[in-house]
């Protein structure tokens, strides 16, 4: 078992993952361009992503990443049933939540951390539904959104990953996440991509596979 730098010892028991939540803002497109193409076509987990965007314009994220991914990629619609192995982006100016079913839910409730969509809103609702079968990932960003959400993921038994702040285009978001969730595993984007590649055919998440 490899002990990752700056992390607590990883349990050797691998965890089955039903969903992955990812939060990012500044520098997010580049970071996601490393992670999302690593998702295997046989992925069983659903992937939900909040990336901070201008609120008044339509988003091209789903189109940009559809071409780069082996998994189906779309913008989330309200009441849409969650399909395993699919990637969903939160639409601009709506919070994305996961509701019983599971299905996707949108809201126009007030901004959280100056943001809509907010990472905390997605992570907290997903943690409530998926519990220990959730993987939460915080990437580059210049805002503290996501820190409380990642803490909730961890508190309810899920796995928390944070991009190494010194490797992030903007370090505030990963730094804040580590401060609020000190037990999170801190990895480079390449290490995270390697980890995601191992999730083929519904394989469990085994952090001992991650290398420096």
């Amino acid at each position, binding site marked *: 078992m490899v002990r990752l730098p700056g992390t607590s010892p990883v349990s050797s028991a691998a965890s089955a993952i039903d969903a992955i939540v990812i939060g990012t803002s500044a520098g997010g497109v580049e970071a996601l361009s490393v992670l999302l193409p690593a998702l295997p076509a046989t992925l069983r987990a659903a992937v939900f992503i909040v990336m901070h965007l201008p609120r008044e314009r339509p988003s091209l994220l789903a189109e940009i990443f559809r071409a780069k991914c082996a998994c189906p990629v779309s913008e989330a619609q*309200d*009441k*849409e049933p969650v399909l395993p192995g699919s990637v969903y982006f939160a639409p601009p100016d709506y919070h994305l939540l*996961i509701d019983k079913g599971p299905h996707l*839910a949108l809201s*126009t409730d007030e901004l959280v951390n100056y943001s809509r969509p907010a990472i905390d809103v997605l992570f907290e609702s997903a943690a409530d539904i998926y519990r220990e079968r959730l993987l939460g990932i915080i990437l580059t960003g210049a805002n503290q959104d996501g820190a409380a959400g990642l803490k909730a993921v961890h508190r309810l038994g899920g796995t928390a990953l944070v991009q190494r702040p010194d490797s992030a285009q903007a370090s505030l978001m990963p730094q804040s996440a580590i401060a609020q969730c000190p037990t999170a595993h801190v990895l480079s984007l390449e290490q995270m991509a390697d980890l995601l590649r191992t999730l083929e055919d519904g394989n469990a998440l085994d952090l001992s596979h991650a290398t420096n």
Partner: protein
Amino acid sequence: MSRTQEKTSAAPVKDFDIELQLLIDAIYLKYHYDFRGYAGASLKRRLTTAMSRFGCHTLSQLQDKVLHDPKTFPALMDFLTVQVSEMFRDPAYFRSLREKVVPLLRTYPSLKIWVAGCSTGEEVYSLAILLREEGLLERTLIYATDINVHALQKAEAGVYELDRIAGFTDNHRMSGAPASLSDYYTAAYGRAVFDKTLKKHIVFSDHSLATDSVFAEVHLVSCRNVLIYFDRELQDRALGLFHEALCRKGFLGIGTKESLRFSAQADAFDELVQHGRIFQKRDG
């Protein structure tokens, strides 16, 4: 026997979920507001915020206040129901109304429109202004309904903070407006007071999509970003009311990211504007 079986086979119910159900039932029994069909994730989030605002550690404590402190429930209603919107939010929606719906509305000698879930009124005034610009307001009656009486009072006042007007003005321009929004309000003391003659064509009224029935036949229903707060069953009920209220070939406008695809009423409407979220009641 079956009780024991239930105990062993069912997943453990979280305390919060038990308390949530009890609170919603308490509100229904005492105040006759029905939140039982509200979407769980958003409701939980709002109640979690409310809990800290009211200084409660559990929903049971909040329930105690809701039942025994008369000031708590009206304040809680604002947490549960108020959505702060903008005037001409999603300008493309209003542009589609102008271009695709208004020409058909012109063919009617008199018009009725229902803005369901109007909250503090931004959408109602947007529609009234659009109709005046298109020369249709004089023959129109708009029903603006919501379950939150406090929000309805604000809507009826038609007064908004001046610092929100710049955003409203941009939206209004992008909706294809022929004139400036400033023609429709007077600015004073940091507030914008909207033209009182718009209000002559609006009836504000308390109405619940969860428990009330249809009250008029209308040509257009605009209900945006309200259905997202309902579960599927309640969403189907609301869409059923709209279907019943709409005249033959009447129009339904919903939020930009809302969809009829996952509803039992999907076949009752045709999409009029592709991706525009404007539908037309299907014949027959």
